[in-house]
């Protein structure tokens, strides 16, 4: 297949997914913050909380539609751009996506309209229930998407069926309760809660700096500070849990994140700083902290963390075994009832994906020589410097967020809302968690390369048989459309923030007084 088609397919998926993921985390967190704020309104009955809820609800709505709109692309893009992937793992991967629609997306999308239009039609408790359903649907949606993604990282509960030439479910509970999916889910939604909290604190701080709408700002600040503190602790702790599951499952990803070329005697040291060199296969100017990596990754003093060289050697033997699986599979395709070939296939089938890595160089993996196998084994190493730096920036921001929310929480509990240096930091900090979550996505997905499904299906085999022209057309189209919408959405959010929490009510009251048709 044309390598340009694969690169462009990956580029389009990355662009559309990263773009989608700008809106989703804010939706995840803001939906819960709305539930908290509206609960306070229902309990206290004070109108200021209603105004506060409705104001953040307006911003939620502007953000929500783009999350939904760009999510449509994601649901269909597997079939459009990754059709062989869709065939190869659809039996497993399609299920969580469909369940997401049934259990989660229907819930949030059906109730979200009522959330905006039902203020005058429902009782207070009734409306709170509707907001709660939106938040529940949104968060359940993340659960199912991450069960799907978790399976790509750690493909449990499935086996290759030579008769249908694809992976099929053997144990659905294993797919459902995949430890990688669980860790990713909690880590990802917590990151969403952090984004929303930073957003609310940032905008509130802007109002406090300008001494505008102070009542709404103080209340929002306080809620978000408490919620954000819990969320930021959760992100880091459960991010660590994600790292811990990597040691069992994606050793290569961990080694790449840590730029750890050679296996060290346990407990391994952590490279805090260094310049990983992909060509020389070493890390220059490394500053190492003894024992730390071994302790974090294995939670023991004697657990070994494998280095890249050792993992590549393992890949090499798995590729050799995969070639045997491929050979047996070719026999089975022609003679489905050949018991001898079936036996050989069963013996090596877990390495079939490794054998397929050779298809990048030879049409028939059985023709590959030792040098090609060696080369393919080094393909299993993702981009080390990118992983190393992305992780450090992401984790750095993550720890920074704890400090940020701890400060915000202290200030809020002592009712000190006039600390201008912090308010300024809070406004400037708004983009930081977005950078962090986008990097987290890169670490997760680029760290899995060269695999679409870890150890099962190489990415380059998953792409559709499209032409470069088709891909260029869709990439340019998406870029223009998404770019335009980004400008409009940021403009509207800034416009809404500038007009403040009472703008809608005031504008409406003014229109009513004039007797003219209202423009909300």
């Amino acid at each position, binding site marked *: 297949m044309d390598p340009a088609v694969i690169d462009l397919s990956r580029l389009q998926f990355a662009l559309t997914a990263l773009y989608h993921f700008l809106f989703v985390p804010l939706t995840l967190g803001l939906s819960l913050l709305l539930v908290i704020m509206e609960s306070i309104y229902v309990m206290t009955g004070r109108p200021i909380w209603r105004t506060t809820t409705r104001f953040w609800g307006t911003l939620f709505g502007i953000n929500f539609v783009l999350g939904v709109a760009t999510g449509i692309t994601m*649901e269909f893009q597997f079939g459009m751009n990754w059709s062989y992937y869709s*065939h190869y793992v659809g039996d497993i991967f399609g299920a969580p996506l469909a369940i997401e*629609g049934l259990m989660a997306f*229907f819930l949030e999308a059906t109730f979200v309209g*009522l959330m905006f239009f039902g203020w005058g039609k429902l009782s207070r408790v009734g409306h709170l229930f509707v907001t709660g359903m939106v938040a529940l649907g949104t968060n359940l949606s993340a659960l199912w998407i991450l069960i799907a993604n978790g399976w790509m990282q750690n493909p449990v509960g499935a086996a290759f069926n030579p008769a249908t030439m694809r992976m*099929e479910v053997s144990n659905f509970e294993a797919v459902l309760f995949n430890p990688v999916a669980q860790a990713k889910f909690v880590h990802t939604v917590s990151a969403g809660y952090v984004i929303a909290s930073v957003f609310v604190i940032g905008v509130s701080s802007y109002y406090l700096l300008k001494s505008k709408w102070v009542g709404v700002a103080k209340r929002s600040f306080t809620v978000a500070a408490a919620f954000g503190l819990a969320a930021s602790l959760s992100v880091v702790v459960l991010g660590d849990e994600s790292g811990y599951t990597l040691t069992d499952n994606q050793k290569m990803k961990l080694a790449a994140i840590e730029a750890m070329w050679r296996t060290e005697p346990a407990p391994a040291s952590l490279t805090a700083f260094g310049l990983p060199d992909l060509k020389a296969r070493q890390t220059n100017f490394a500053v190492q902290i003894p024992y730390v990596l071994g302790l974090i990754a294995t939670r023991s003093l004697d657990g070994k963390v494998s280095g890249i060289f050792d993992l590549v050697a393992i890949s090499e033997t798995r590729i050799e075994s995969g070639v045997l699986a491929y050979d047996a599979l070719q026999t089975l395709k022609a003679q489905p009832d050949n018991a001898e070939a079936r036996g050989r296939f069963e013996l090596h089938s877990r390495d079939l994906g490794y054998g397929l890595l050779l298809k990048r160089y030879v049409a028939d993996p059985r023709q590959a020589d030792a040098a090609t196998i060696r080369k393919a084994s080094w393909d299993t190493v993702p981009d080390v410097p990118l992983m190393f730096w992305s992780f450090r920036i992401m984790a750095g921001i993550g720890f920074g967020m704890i400090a940020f929310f701890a400060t915000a929480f202290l200030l809020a509990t002592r009712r000190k809302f006039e600390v201008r240096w912090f308010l300024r930091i809070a406004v400037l900090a708004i983009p930081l968690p977005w950078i962090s979550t986008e990097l987290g996505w890169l670490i997760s997905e680029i760290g899995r390369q060269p695999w679409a499904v870890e150890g099962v299906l190489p990415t380059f085999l998953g792409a559709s048989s499209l032409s470069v022209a088709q891909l260029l057309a869709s990439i340019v189209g998406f870029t223009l459309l998404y770019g335009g919408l980004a400008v409009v959405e940021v403009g509207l959010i800034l416009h809404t923030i500038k007009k403040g929490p009472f703008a809608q009510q005031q504008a409406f009251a003014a229109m009513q007084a004039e007797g003219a048709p209202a423009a909300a």
Partner: protein
Amino acid sequence: MILPLDYPTLRVIWWGLMGVLLIGFALTDGFDMGVCALLPFVARTDEERRVVINTVGATWEGNQVWFILGGGAIFAAWPLVYAASFSGFYLAMFLVLSALILRPVAFKYRSKRPNGAWRTFWDWALFVGGFVPALVFGVAVGNVLLGAPFKLDGDLRSTYSGSFLGLFTPLSLICGLLSVAMLLLHGAAWLGVKAERGPILDRARTYGTIAGGFSLVLFAVGGLLIAFGPFGFRIVGAADPGGFSNPLRAVVAAAPGAWLGNYGRYPWMLIAPTLGFAGVAAALIGLWKRSEPLALAASSISAIGIISTVGLSMFPFILPSSADPQSSLTVWNASSSHLTLFIMLLVTVVFLPIILIYTAWVYSVLWGRTSAAALRTDPDLY
């Protein structure tokens, strides 16, 4: 593992469920698309347009999930169909996605600024978001009837050999226009029950009547083309309903006229085209007599009839291949595994009724006609 339902039964159930999801989409999001496509024509002033938009403003988002869920369910239950069709109809899909991406944004953003040019822009975005998907879905159905030019290799990798312009043939254009006409009629019927009586309804009645007339003619012409044109495929020899999902194991041949074969074998299937015609006719009567609930019920029935006609005519084919009939995807060779179909059925049986219950509740809360007066008293309306 022994499952309580056998593989052929589950395959037929999932074929039916795919139809249920498509019909759910056509009935609910169908009137959203119809209303959006009618918007520039039935509503002239900003106030009228706001009335029209607010007839679907609070519920279109949930309705759209039928489409998303349809995609997810085809992925889960018919992975080969999902893979071959969406990659094959690539640019057409891109067009639909672009239009559908514009739609949510247009609904939400239009009311955010009072500026006239801003609102006009989003009005046309809504029109595109209604008209384009309606047309392309119909054209896609036409191409499914024709067979798509794709071929599966020994690894079941699909390669598509057609072009974007090749999607537009006389039959597929008739299907596309029928889809537009059917949804315009449905949208007009929806406005009938949901918008206040007055000039908007009068115009909707006119456009709905025209759309209904076109629906009748196009459905009939499409049927005649199918009957006498060179369309249709059949499985050569005995099908293996419980066999492995591997299309290369059965033999398929092009067979002109074969799409009518099912009606000879199973005469009860004639119910579907009958409902299609009768539904449109009854909807026209409803519009004529200004009996809005009748018009909406009848246009819903017509959509059910027309969509079912396509599915039943082709059974057991789902996506035949014109380039290589051997690669054709059928109910018996393109499904997920037995276990996946069973698990997904359990999940659907639990959640689909729950969805219907809360959707009905949301509609009941929002019940009633949208009026220009409400725009002045309810600050939440678009």
